[in-house]
């Protein structure tokens, strides 16, 4: 009898393929920027792959900022019941 396998979507092989597909899409998007005539509002936002870099950096800053605040703000779940 065949050993019961987990759902195909969570097998390591599928996840590897998904990462490859995701990377290809990201590369295509950055590449597409060189064929698009952007209409920058303020200058910097007209640079190629501005959105990609800006989005990525924003998220990194937000996550680290949130982690830092979390040290102060995170409390046990019964905090208000004590």
């Amino acid at each position, binding site marked *: 009898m065949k050993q019961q396998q*987990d759902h195909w979507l969570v097998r390591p092989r599928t996840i590897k393929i998904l990462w490859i597909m995701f990377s290809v899409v990201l590369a295509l998007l950055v590449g597409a920027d060189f064929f698009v005539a952007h209409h920058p509002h303020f200058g910097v936002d007209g640079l190629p792959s501005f959105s*990609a870099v800006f989005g990525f950096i924003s*998220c990194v*800053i*937000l*996550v680290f900022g949130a982690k830092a605040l979390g040290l102060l*703000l*995170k409390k046990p779940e019964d905090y208000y019941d004590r």
Partner: protein
Amino acid sequence: MIGNFMLFPALVLIFSGFLSLFLRGNVRAALLLGAPLFTLWMVWQISDGPQLSVPYLGYELTLVYGSKLGRLFATVFSLMAFMGALFALNQRSKLELGAAFTYAGAAIGVALCKDLLTLFVFWEVMAVASTLVLVSNGAAALKAALRYGLMHFLGGVILMAGIAGHVAQTGSISFEAMTLERWPEMLMLAGILINAAAVPLGAWLPDAYPQASWSGMVFLSAFTTKTSVFVLIVAFPGEQVLIWIGLFMVFHGIIWAILENDMRRILAYSIINQVGFMLTGIGIGSEVALNGAAAHAFTHIIYKALLLMSAGSVVYMTGKSRCSDLGGLFRTMPVTMVTGVIGALAISAFPFTSGFVSKSMVTQGAADAHLSGVWYLLVAASAGVFLHAGIKFPWFVFFQKDSGLRPSDPPMNMQVAMIIGAVLCIFIGVMPQSLYAILPFYVDYVPYTFSHVVSQLQLLLFSGLAFFLMLGLLKRTETITIDSDWLWRRLGLILANGTVRLVVRVAAPVRHAGVQAVQALLWGLNKTHNEKGPLGRPAQTGSIAFLMVLFLAIFIALRFYS
């Protein structure tokens, strides 16, 4: 002019909500599904200008007034009541839907009125009805409901004080654009901002909403904050302070949502975040920005309801709401997962969803007004929305680890409600003209240019990359995150206890002296009034008669010789 009461859409939902308490089965379902659709039809029968007025205490109340903005909000409120009713039919508490319909009806009342007194009455009906939606979830929600009610009655009192001052100073009850120069208007703005969950009291929202039932939060998310957005668009367009309040809310929502573990608290914080976008648009105040704020309120109500229906279905089927307890549900809840993902894409403003065509108008407004700082912050926040709601919610609930839970999709009516919401999100995204046609101002904006789509996809997908690269940092912990509600849930308690202790300490010597004085008095009284004391001895009838005669003699003497 006394118009036709048949043209008063707010009353249809309020009345049918009340009636539904006494009905059951298919009759109740038919009423609850039919009433919102009938209301929607009525809303579109209202032509522009005042339609229904009544005199009251020397004022002319304009109960129903046709305008593009009012119709837009009344439309989405009616749609929301329909979707919510379909979703909530299996809710055992009849009170919840009855209260929710009153709540929705009052929100429509606000959207269609044209004077401040009517506005205030519906405002307070909303506060009471929404508190009842919370109360209907039973004992677990009671404390949160009390805090919620108190906060909204406080907001109502501040709003009323502002209205009274405004009417006293201007003599006008008209609900129209105002300037923020004197204290009555400032009070009105403060009262409205409390309902909009703005800083600093906005923590009432994530405190209360997640305590509602699996269906109750769907209703709560829709009406209170968005009614405030409507009132702000009418009364304070272009008021610059709203830009900064809005931007604060945008980041407040993102950061707290990143820290939260409970999926419904995550979605509650993302309401604050999204309302922040709307307030920023109102503060910018140009036609494209106000259109953006109104359009974003419209699309937000639908995709947020969709997200909360998806989360509500998970709570309904598993009884769990914490990300750390959930995960892997995509295996057995495909409809809930797919519709939830569509809602998550819409809130992230993914191209070809409703959020893309509405939110980009707000950022466009910032660009047109040459507010570069605001524009950069809004774009950074758009990336943050994908991070905290767009990926976080579906990832931790439906994928992540395998929690071992194998719930099926919820009952058919709940699935249909979610599918309707998902279809609306995509329809508006693909056919933006359908929404643009009913916005308050003429729309001269094209969302789908190659450049805009590529930029937005870059922004979102690289945020996605950031999410998966930092997954270790985002691991859920079994904690809550304190917010400004700490002021009244903790600091208030500490101050109250401290005051009691202080009073006890200061009062001890005073009390001691007081007790001694009373004891001395009692000792003295006892001495004179006990059975041997001069005033306590049983008196003889003869001596009393003698005393009476003596007094009488003195009175007579005084009468004649004075």
